[in-house]
Each structure stands twice: as C-alpha cells, then as structure tokens.
C-alpha cells in the first residue's frame, strides 16, 4: 500500500514537472528558478535518488514542504535541490556530502527536529537519505516546481498604510448637527450627527434616580445609600448632577473601582498558579499603587511611564503623605504573571514568561497583539517577529526584585553622602602618605589561561556594570590600598583594603524589610534577605559550568539562570549555595546550564560581612590557586606598605578614624532601616535578544536591537545604559504614537458606555473591530492629550454628556434600524460586575468596612475549591466586610462568586469582560449563605430604624434601587409580609419574614441590571 502511494505521489509530481517545464519553455523564465546544479550527475546516483530518495521525500515531506503546500512549514521547501541548499527559517537544510552536518538528516534522525512528525522513518529509509547526502545529493537537472498557491507575503509598510489604527491621530472638528439644542458637549455632536444621518432619534434623558444610580456604580462601583439617594433626589439645584459627579470623582472609592478595571488588564493576581500556587509576595502593593494613582489622577503618560520604567525615573513621584517612591511600584505589573517551578527546559520557561509580559504590555498600553508575532510575522497586523524580539530585549535586560520602596529614596541620598564622606576621608588619609602602594609593579602577571576563566572581576568592573539592589555594596568596589574605616574591639581604626572586592558595608546593618502576610511561601529564595542587600553581577554566558566565586564572609549566592527564580522542587536547587565563613571559594555546579545566560546575586547574611572578588567559569583548582596567589601578592604588598607607615602618621590616622566614625555615625542615624517591600523591576545588563526561529527557544537566530514597533518608530533606541525601558516608555508616550491615547480613551468610554468606540479594546488590529465613531475617538484622544492626560477630566466629560445620560428605554424604529445600537440611540442596560454586586450587599447589610489598602483578606474556601497549594486557612465568608478588590486573588483558588459573575481568570489582558447570563448566577443569589446572611442583616437594619412597614419598605427600595417604592410595589411587598407572617404563624415584625423580603429584593433583576 505504502509503496503504491509513494509511487502515485511521484507520478503526480512528475506530471506537474512536465507542465512546469513546458511552461518554462514558452515564457520568460523570470520567476522560475533552476535547480541547483548537481556536480556529479552520475546516472547510477540519479537512479538511486529516483528510486530510494524522491519517493521518500514525496511521501513524507511534500505535504508541508512542497510547492503544493497550502502553508509552507518553516519556510522550507524540499522538492528541489536549490531550495534545500537555500534552506528555510533554520538555515540550509542540506550540505552535499555531509550527512551528519545536514539539518535534513538531523531531523529524520530525530536529533533536533523530529521529522516527519507523525513518526520516525524506518532505519533503512534514514540510511538511504544519509547515503544520498553523502553522495553529494544528486538531483536531476530539472526546473523547480513553482508554488501553486501564492503565499501571502509580509509587507509591514503596506499593512501599516492600509489599517486605520496606525494612522496619525487627527483632531477633527465636531460635526454640525440639526438639533442644536441636544448636545451638551462636543461628544454629543459626534453621536447626534450620525443618528441624524440615519434618521434616528436619541433616547430621552434618563430619570434622575436612574442617572444617579448609574453614576454611583460607574464611578465608584457602589450604590448610593438610602440617605445619599434621598439627598440627591431632593435637590433642585441645576448643578446637582455636576456636583455629584465631582463628589464621586473625589471619593476615595473612585480609585478602588477604576483600579479593578486596570487590574483586569495586567492579569493581577497574588499567587503564581501552576502546580502549588505559591505567593506573589506583596502584590497588593501594586494594587494599592493603582488605587492611589487613580485617586490622585496622575496624568496618564506618567502612569504609563511608571509602569514601564518607574524604577529608572530621574525624579520619581513621591507619595505626598509618606514620601516613599510611588513610581517604582508601577513596575510591579510586569511580574504579576504565572511562574513555574522546576521547568525541565529553563530557557523555554523564560521565553514563555517574556511572551506573557510582552503580550500584557502591548495589549494594555497599545491595544495591539504583539505576542502573535512570536513565532512568525503577525498574520494580519503590521507587526514583525523582529518587533517582538526587539521588545523581548528590554525584558532580557531587566530583573525582578522585591524593592524597599519606602526607604529607597531616603537611603539613596544617604548612600551618596556616605560615598562623598568616605571619599573625603580617603583623600585625607592619602594626604598623610608620601606615596601610594605600587600594586601593579609588585604583583607578578596573572597566567593567561587562569585570567581567561574570570567572567566577573570586581577589580576592573565598569561603573554601569556595578549593579546592586540597595546600597550596601557602596558606589564602587573597594580597591586594594583604599583606606577604610574598620571597627575593632579597640574602636575605629583606619586600615588599607587588602584586595579588590565588592564589599558590603556594615554601616547598613539592621535593615528590616517588611512583607505582607504569607499564605504559601515556597522556594529557596524566600529565606534569603535579598532586598536592598544584594550585589548583582553582570550577565554572562555559561561556557563551562564549573562556576566559582572568590568570596569572603557569610551569606548566599544565587545563580539566576534565564531569569528563573522559582527555585522549588526537584530541579535547579543547585543554583542557590550558602557562603560560609571558612571557605573563600563558593562553587556552583552550573553544568546543566552551559550555553545559558546567567548572573549571580550575592547576599550577606543578616548583619554579616560579605565581599566578592571575582567569578570564574571553568577554572581548574590550579587556576584558582593562581588567582589566589595573585590576590595574596597584592594583599602582601598592601600589608607591607601599611606596616611601613610611621607612627606619627598612625597617630594622625587615629584622629581621622575617630572623626570619620563620628560622621558616619551621624549619617547612620538618618538611614531608613525599616521598609515595606513591593514587586519591582530593576535594570540588569543591557542586552538585545535573539530572534527565536519559529519562536523556538532552542533555535536562536540573529540579534535584534531594542526598538519600538516598526510601524510606529522602528529605529533602534538610543540607550545610554541598562535596559532602555525609559526610552521605551517615552516611545509609548510619544505624541506621534497613534495608539496609546486612542487606547486609553477608548477603554474609558468602554467602561462608561458598556462598549468601546472600538468594541475590541485590547485589539486595535485587523482582527479587532473598527471604531464606530472614528472622529469621536480621535477627538477624545486629542482633547485628552491637550488637557494634560487627566483620566478624571475625561470621565467627567463623558458622564456629563447627553449621550451618557440617555435613558435605556429603546425606540422600536431605532432598534429595527440599528439593532446593535452601534450609533448609540440609547444607553444599554448594564449588568453589575461581580465586585459591585457583592459590594452592594455589603453596603445594604451595613457591614461594609470602608478601609482602603493593605494586605488582602484571604479568600473564603468552599469545599469545592480544592487542589494543590490550597491555603491552610480559609478566609472569612464575609471577606471581613472589605470591598471585593481586597479579597485575595489566588490563581488556583479564585472566588467562585466572582468567576461566576465574569471576573476574569488572570492570565492575560482582559479589557472587556464577558457578560454571561447563566443559572449559576441565579443559584448564587438564591442560595449562597453569604447572600442570605447579608440580606438578613439588611432587614434587621430596616426593622431597627423604622416601625412602620411602609417606611421600612420604602427605605429598602431606596437603598436597593436608589428610588422609593411605587404604590404597586409597596402593596405587593406589604401583602407578602402579611401573607408570610400568617403562613408562618408569626408576627409581621418577625425578622424571618423581613429577611425573606430582603432576599427577594436582592433576587430582582433591577438589583444587578442597571438601566
């Protein structure tokens, strides 16, 4: 069977060749390539090819790698010799005469690629192919088949030109309208003009109580209390609505509600998910940062800048009350994704993490799907694979840390003063000496082979390469011969440093870093006090695996391989090693990681010394002995020099030491030793990333310089040092970037109106939907930029527009003409998000604890929430009465209440939540014990406050729906109370009966559907 099939394929191929040849002879052979010439077209060899090789290729390869392939896999065509020589994405597939060196043979042997994918060829078939390659890959002189399908080519400029989103933002004039009395804002003119064009009337203005309730939920995510509702409804002031809007925008709850929108974009969670769901320690600090930033109305461009590069700002934004660095907290968004432990392929793990970071960043800020270009140029948009890997370079050049954000700015100042102080005293010590120790001449030159193993040398490190988290390793390494102030039993003395080493300074003893409560701590790193106390080497490529560091003191070294930090489980434990006082070499077995990028992090034990001289890769014991020898020669020469210092000078030194110690002590008092921690980014070694062929992390291609999206400004960025994220942030914020501002005004519109002007807020690409009102989108984007990028101003304008304030009642003709309401002839009914439903219940029950900020309340665990990493303790059922945004978001233990009401699974950007409508939602409101409990509390409040049934009923309607009960509703409710009381043989004041009324009101649709 098989043989017949293969022969058939060959026959088909042969006949198509005939056609091709025939065509070639009668037309200009412009686009027909002639197969690569076979050097020895020995007929016997050719016969071997035709009998043994071509059928194999035809049967197993042509479907995906032939001229007839719908899509050509890996860019490789194997039905002619020239294409094989030219190769595909991974380079030449064939080296004639060299079977072992030919990719095609590697692939069929399943050594790297595994081809054909459906199963390995028989040994004799592989042998035949190898033999053919060894023969020189004979192939008859024939015309290569022309691909039948014209495969789409990627033309970035063409795509850019032909898609609206890449075009510059215009600043259109608001259109003229006929009903000039309708618009209250230019926004309304844009909407009305289109309605008038279609001959459709806008809906009437919404009732006052409807508008009020809408504003409360849209702006702060909570309902008005009965009193607030009554107060507003009683006002006759024409400014009342504006005043209410201003009041709500100024409410501290505004930030909570809008932060939740933002958290959906950055896949906010407080655990890593995966197998054991370990903590993302201190993630809540990012959540609180967002709430504060939105409440403070930080200009949007600044908000963007802080998230991309808040750690790099020359003048970070300080918290107005507590002076801590706010900006740096923004960078936490990068690290809110899933992390895994013990990946067998650690580089692939990194590329997956980066992919998620690029995906979230590009969708959130730019509304484009750059991650679609990971394996190939974007299928639809003007985004190339090179664009993807240019962005990946920014991440490759950056690190994760838990930053001491409360102390960092103060201590940075101290560290600068300390550096100046020490320099001053070093200078004064130098002045006491006739000359300097001549170290260069004293030491014998180091053996070249030994020197070649040194990958990091703190004797000669360039200043941008001297990196640390915190300040304890000083502004530069200590140099041999440097005067240092030593603390001995006899008090402070001056000594000369004996070696070149990055050295921690006990000046900083007593640093205390505070984390929020832990739920599920995992990993070898959690116990190491890294924050603000860690020296980071430049990144290097592991070539030998036998890595060692010359150290002195106590602490730990962590080899961060491919930015992997979740060191827990069976693999990768060898990357963390203790440094114990007695040995001056710490060795790391990194054999597993040869060819991987790594940097080392050195952290002294709490209040201990640690110095690091150099790091080697591949040094033998003898080489290390030579390095030691070299080091001790330097030390000896310094010691010798020091011993020659005469007693008069030593006396001077004593005085200097005393003064120096006093000044240091004085400075030390200003150190901010206690600080909370938060997730943040920091710069590592600035590097470009390789383009990974087909996204495969084991197939690196060319380096791609870091730049922004080519379709916007693809020139390599001028990056003076480090990652270049600050430059990236500026590119995202640039005035001529057509995306950023459109995206944010569209998101805002989406949240207020229920649908974006671009209905797909995370995708402005070709597969997304086009703007319904492009002029309005650009108008808003322009105004937003002109008015200082204030989100509150933008929200204020939209909610005060007549468009926003339309009623939800529909006009039959308008619905018939525009059933999807694309022209906005009415405001659609909105279902409350899960958070607002629960928060409403809290308000009604009187159990709301309106405290802002802080560690999350542990999630309440139902018996249905099982699995590994389940928190040891369930949180309280009522979430301590805190707003829903303060309930812990644990990836593997999400609140079922929230997920049922469509709070997204945190894995990627979700700018538009699905709004589902399912029985499970009804079941929650009917039977969830928490809902029943809150309803009962609400009823109790009604009974406590009012004796009259009518008053109770009115108050309950007022607090649930923001309006008094109608006569009919009052009657129905009263009748229910009476009937239930009599059926249960209890009084009409029984809490049981009123609790049931309350529960029934919660189960009306009006409770969660806002007209």
């Amino acid at each position, binding site marked *: 069977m098989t043989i017949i099939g293969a022969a058939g394929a060959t026959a088909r191929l042969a006949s198509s060749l005939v056609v091709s040849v025939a065509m070639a002879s009668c037309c200009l052979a412009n686009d027909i390539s002639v197969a690569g010439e076979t050097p020895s077209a020995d007929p016997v060899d050719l016969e071997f090819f035709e009998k043994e090789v071509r059928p194999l290729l035809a049967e197993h390869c042509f479907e995906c790698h032939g001229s007839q392939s719908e899509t050509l896999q890996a860019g490789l065509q194997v039905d002619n010799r020239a294409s094989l020589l030219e190769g595909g994405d991974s380079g030449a597939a064939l080296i004639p005469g060299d079977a072992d060196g030919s990719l095609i043979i590697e692939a069929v042997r*399943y050594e790297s690629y*595994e081809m054909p*994918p459906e*199963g390995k060829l028989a040994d004799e078939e592989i042998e035949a192919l190898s033999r053919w390659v060894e023969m020189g890959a004979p192939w008859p002189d024939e015309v290569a088949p022309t691909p039948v399908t014209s495969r789409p080519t990627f033309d970035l400029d063409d795509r850019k030109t032909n898609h609206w989103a890449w075009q510059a933002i215009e600043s259109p004039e608001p259109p003229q309208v006929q009903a000039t009395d309708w618009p209250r804002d230019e926004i309304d003119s844009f909407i009305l003009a289109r309605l008038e064009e279609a001959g459709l009337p806008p809906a009437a203005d919404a009732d006052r109580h409807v508008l009020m309730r809408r504003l409360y939920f849209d702006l702060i995510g909570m309902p008005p209390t009965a009193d607030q509702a009554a107060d507003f409804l009683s006002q006759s002031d024409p400014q009342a609505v504006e005043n209410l809007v201003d009041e709500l925008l100024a409410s501290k709850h505004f930030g909570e509600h809008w932060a939740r929108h933002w958290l959906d974009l950055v*896949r906010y969670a407080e655990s890593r*998910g*995966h197998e054991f*769901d370990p903590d993302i320690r201190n993630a809540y600090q990012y959540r609180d940062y967002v709430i504060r930033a939105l409440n403070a109305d930080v200009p949007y461009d600044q908000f963007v800048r802080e998230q991309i590069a808040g750690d790099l700002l020359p003048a970070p934004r300080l918290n107005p009350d507590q002076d801590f660095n706010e900006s740096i907290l923004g960078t936490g968004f990068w690290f809110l994704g*899933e992390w895994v432990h*013990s*990946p*067998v*392929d650690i580089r692939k793990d990194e590329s997956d993490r980066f992919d998620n970071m690029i995906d979230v960043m590009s*969708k959130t800020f730019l509304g484009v*799907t750059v991650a*679609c270009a990971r394996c190939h140029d974007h299928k639809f*948009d003007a985004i190339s694979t090179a664009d993807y890997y240019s962005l990946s370079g920014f991440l490759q050049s950056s690190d994760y840390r838990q930053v001491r954000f409360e102390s960092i700015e103060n201590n940075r100042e101290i560290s600068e003063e300390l550096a100046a102080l020490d320099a001053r005293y070093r200078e004064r010590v130098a002045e006491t000496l006739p000359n300097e120790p001549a170290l260069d001449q004293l030491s014998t030159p180091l053996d070249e082979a030994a020197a070649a193993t040194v990958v990091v040398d703190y004797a000669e490190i360039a200043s941008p390469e001297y990196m640390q988290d915190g300040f304890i390793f000083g502004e530069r390494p200590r140099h041999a011969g440097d005067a240092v102030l030593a603390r001995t039993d006899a008090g402070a003395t001056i000594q000369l440093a004996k070696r070149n080493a990055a050295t921690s300074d006990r000046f900083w003893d007593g640093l205390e870093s505070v984390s929020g409560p832990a739920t599920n701590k995992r990993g070898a790193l959690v116990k190491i006090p890294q924050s603000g106390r860690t020296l980071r080497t430049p990144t290097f490529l592991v070539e030998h695996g036998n890595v060692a560091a010359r150290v002195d003191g106590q602490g730990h070294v962590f080899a961060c391989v491919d930015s992997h930090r979740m060191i827990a489980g069976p*693999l990768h434990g060898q990357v963390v090693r203790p440094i114990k006082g007695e040995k001056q070499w710490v060795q790391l077995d990194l054999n597993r990681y040869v060819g991987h990028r790594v940097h080392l992090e050195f952290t002294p034990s709490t209040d201990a010394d640690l110095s690091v001289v150099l790091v080697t890769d591949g040094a033998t014991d003898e080489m290390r002995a030579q390095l030691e020898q070299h080091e001790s020669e330097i030390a000896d020469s310094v010691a010798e020099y020091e011993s020659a210092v005469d007693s008069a000078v030593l006396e001077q030194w004593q005085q200097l030491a005393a003064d120096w110690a006093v000044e240091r002590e004085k400075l030390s008092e200003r150190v901010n030793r206690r600080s909370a921690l938060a997730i943040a980014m920091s710069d590592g070694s600035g590097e470009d990333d390789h383009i990974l062929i087909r996204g495969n992390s084991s197939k690196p291609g060319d380096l791609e310089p870091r730049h922004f999206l080519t379709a916007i400004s693809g020139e390599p960025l001028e990056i003076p040092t480090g990652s270049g994220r600050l430059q990236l942030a500026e590119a995202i914020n640039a005035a001529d970037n057509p995306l950023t501002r459109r995206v944010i005004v569209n998101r805002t519109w989406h949240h207020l109106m229920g649908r974006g002007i671009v209905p797909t807020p*995370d*995708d402005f*690409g070709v*597969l*997304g939907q086009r703007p319904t009102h492009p002029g309005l989108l650009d108008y808003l984007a322009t105004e937003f930029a002109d008015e200082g990028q204030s989100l509150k101003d933008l929200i204020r304008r939209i909610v005060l527009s007549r468009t926003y304030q339309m009623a*939800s009642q529909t006009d039959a003709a308008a619905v018939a003409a525009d059933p999807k309401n694309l022209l906005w002839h009415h405001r659609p*009914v909105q*279902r409350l998000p899960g958070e607002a439903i629960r928060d409403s219940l809290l308000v009604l029950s009187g159990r709301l604890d309106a405290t802002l900020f802080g560690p999350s309340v542990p999630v309440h665990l139902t018996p*249905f929430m*099982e*699995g*590994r990493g389940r928190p040891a303790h369930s949180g309280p059922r009522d979430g301590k009465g805190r707003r829903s945004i303060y309930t812990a978001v644990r*990836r593997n*233990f*999400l609140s*079922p209440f929230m*997920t049922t*009401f469509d709070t997204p*699974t945190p*894995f*990627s950007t979700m700018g538009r939540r*699905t709004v*589902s*409508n*399912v*029985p*499970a*939602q*009804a*079941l929650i409101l009917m*039977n969830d014990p928490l809902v029943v409990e809150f309803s009962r509390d609400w009823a109790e409040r009604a009974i406590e406050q009012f004796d009259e049934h009518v008053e109770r009923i009115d108050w309950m309607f007022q607090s649930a729906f923001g309006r008094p009960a109608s006569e009919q509703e009052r009657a*129905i409710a009263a009748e*229910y109370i009476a009937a*239930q009381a009599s*059926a249960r043989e209890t009084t009409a004041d029984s809490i049981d009966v009123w609790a*049931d009324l309350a529960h*029934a*009101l919660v189960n*009306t*649709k*009006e409770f969660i*559907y806002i007209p």
Partner: protein
Amino acid sequence: MNVPSPYPCQRLQSPPLSRREMLSQCAGGFGALALAALQQNSAFADSIDATRKAGHGPHHEVRAKNVIFLYMDGGPSQVDTFDPKPLLKRFHGKDPGKLFTVEPTQFNNNGTVLASPWEFHQYGESGMSVSDLFPNIATCVDELAVIRSMVSEFPEHTFANYFLHTGSGLQGRPTMGAWVNYGLGSECENLPGFVVLNGGLIPPGGLDCFGSGFLPASYQGSIFQPSGSGVANISPTELSPDRQRGKLDLARSLDDIAVHRDGRHDSIESAIANYELAYAMQMAVPEVMSLTDEPAHLQKMYGLESKYEPTRIYGAQCMIARKMIEQGVRFIELTCPQVGGDRWDQHSNLKKGHENNAKAVDQPIAALLKDLRARGLLDETLVVWAGEFGRTPFAQGTNGRDHNPFGFTVWMAGGGVKPGTVYGATDEWGYKAIENRTEIHDLHATMLHLMGVDHTRSTFRFGGRDMRLTDVKGHVIESVIA
C-alpha cells in the same frame, strides 16, 4: 400546581411559544414557569442565553453526542498497562544511557532499566495485550481503540495537565469541556453542560484545568462532589420549598413591574428565565447524584460494594456519569480518588502505587463501558482514558518511574471509535513514539471530529486571534475512527 417531571431532560412535545408569550402566560407562579420551561422544546431554550446555547453546531456527522473523560491524574505508565515491552525484562538493571539516548527528566535521578512488575496477556477477539493491572478493562478490549504513540510537549505535571485539558501548557485557557459546549451547546437544561465529577484529586494546575478561559464563564466546568450537596449553592437555605417559591414569586412580580416600566431588554429577560432553570436544577442535581434507585446488580458491578473505598468512590462517579449521559450532559470529566499514595505519579514504589490506582478504577470503568453498551449508549458516548504523560522505562531511583512525555498510551471507546484497534507504537523500550506519533492536538482534533466538530472551524476570537482548542495544529486520526 403541577409536580415537576422526575426526568427533567425529557422533552415533552408541545407547541413552541415565544419567550415573551411564555413569560406572560406563565406569570402565575415561579413553579409553573419552571415546569413550563422544562416542557418547552428548543424554541424556548435557544433564546434563554445566547452565550450558553449558541453553539455553532456540528459541522458534519455526529458520532459521539457526549464525552466521558476518564482523567488518569499523574501519568500512568504505558509499559505497565497497555504497551508491553518484553525487552525491558532482558535489559532489566542495565544502564539506559548505554542503550538509548536519555532525555532530561523532571527529577534528574535516573536509575536502571526497569522491567514491568506485571505480566501482559492477550484478550478478546482483537488479541490486544493488557497488563494484569486491569483484569476488568481487559475484558472490554474489543471496545477500545488504544493509541500507543501519544506524545506531550511537557514533562512537568502542571504544564502537561493544562496542555492535555486546554491544548496550551499555560494557565487560563479554555478546557476541552468548555470548547465542546461552546461548539455544540448544551442539550440538558437543568444540569450544566460540562461537569467535573471530583473523586478527590484536583490535578496540579487546579481548577483552571476545568476553566473557560477567555470563553464566557458559562462554559466553565461545574464541580460535582460525589457526596454532600453535590454542587455549590444547589441547596436552598429556606426551611421549606414553599418559602423559596414564595420569595421567588415575589421577586418575579417585581421583575414584571420593572419590565413594564423600563421596557424589555434581552439580558433581563434571559436572567428571569435563568431563575427558572436554577430552580429546576435544585431538583435535578440531587436526583442525578442519587444512586439508591439503581439496581443492586449494577451497584455491585460498578464496585459500590467493594471493600476498597477508592473503588466505591470511583464506582459512584462512573455510575453518576452514566446517569448524566442519559440526561444529555455534554462533557463529563472524572478525576481520580485518593488512594493513599500520589495518584498515578509513581516516582517510587511503582508496584504498590499503580496497583492501588488500578484497583480504584479498573472495575468501575469496565462496568461503565458494559453498562453503556447494554443501554445502547456507548455508540453515542465517547469514553476517553488518558493521563497527562507516561512514565520512563527506566527507574527513577530504584523502584519508581519518572515522567515521560515522549511516548505513552491513551485509549478511546464508543462514540464512533474503531473498536479493537491498536494505533501507533513506541520504540522497543516503550520510551519514545516512533510510529504514528500522535500529539495532544491530534487527540483533541479527533475527539471534536467524532462530535461532529471540525477543530479548525471551531474558533473564538480573543486577543486578536481566532483561538482554537488545537491552536494551529492537530490532525484527525482517521485510523481510530470506525
């Protein structure tokens, strides 16, 4: 008032009403509405919830209407179950590195070649080999299509679990059950279309193995516990059904007033209808979870009388699964019961661990296949037995096996599957698939195909892409289809 039908999914024929007619005619009471809802045919059901019902429908002939996915958590060993490798006995104790290329493993603690502690025998007309671990399933081999050439992309549990369930190694993607319901909708109105019968072990990766990802929340798996109330929030807190009904009738009256005042909105009307379904589910769930009415011989056959508790648990899961199939639940996944050790994940003590796991599932699975066959349901029910990967043919330590994604065995039965088939092969060591390598995407494509769905056309647009269960891959395995 009428008593709700004891067979809630049974479709009684009556003329279709429009939803609005329905709502106005049934304003007499919630219970009445609920019953009426049950009696309506799809004209009513289709409009209840666009997102829940709007499956794109089958693209071609439907062979399997429903799926029972028997998830073998932890990764059963292929060479100890369905893929006999006599060579292991010959080279038992030898260094595998000298015999073949050993890939990096999860625990990096590789021992010597480990022969299977179990004998294999041939069974049935097909003569298929099964190890002594599965004496009962062995009697059903002529129903099975065994794929011995599965490969996964991941040697770590969580990645591999997500991959097997969602076609992606990363967290947060829609799982098979969600995709199937997205594609075909649910035929059962008072039970969820995607049920996870939890035997006790939620797999690594947690509940996200059963999530709806970027698909609407309505497609996420509902977790059923085989004991207790079964489903979250299914039990009314009211002391009597009357009280709940009174309360819901009141809410309904107020809803009517609001609809009259504010005008009609589809979302609100759908929500009203969902209360009716929810009300009906309160009755349907306990009914489907109760096994007391099942005949004694069947209870025995499923293992409900076993002395081994995990067998009783899994037996109950299998029996409930069959009942759900009868009610039209589209996709049912069974997770494994606790057997003391660590599910199928025998990094050590392979013999004891695999024995316990097999003991828990063998009898119930065989009973399920036979019961479905006897009821004529097997032909329209696809049963899939799979772990997330297999195990190494060499030891981890001395008596365990490490994870092996390079070649392992899964099987399918019923629902259009070609019975008595062995497809694909691993190498002589049982280590790597070499013949008809089958990817998880292929398994998914085949499952969807049997359900009448073309995996390349069942897409959902998210994040600028038309997403699929099979990503950009997957081929239907024609050879296992009858």
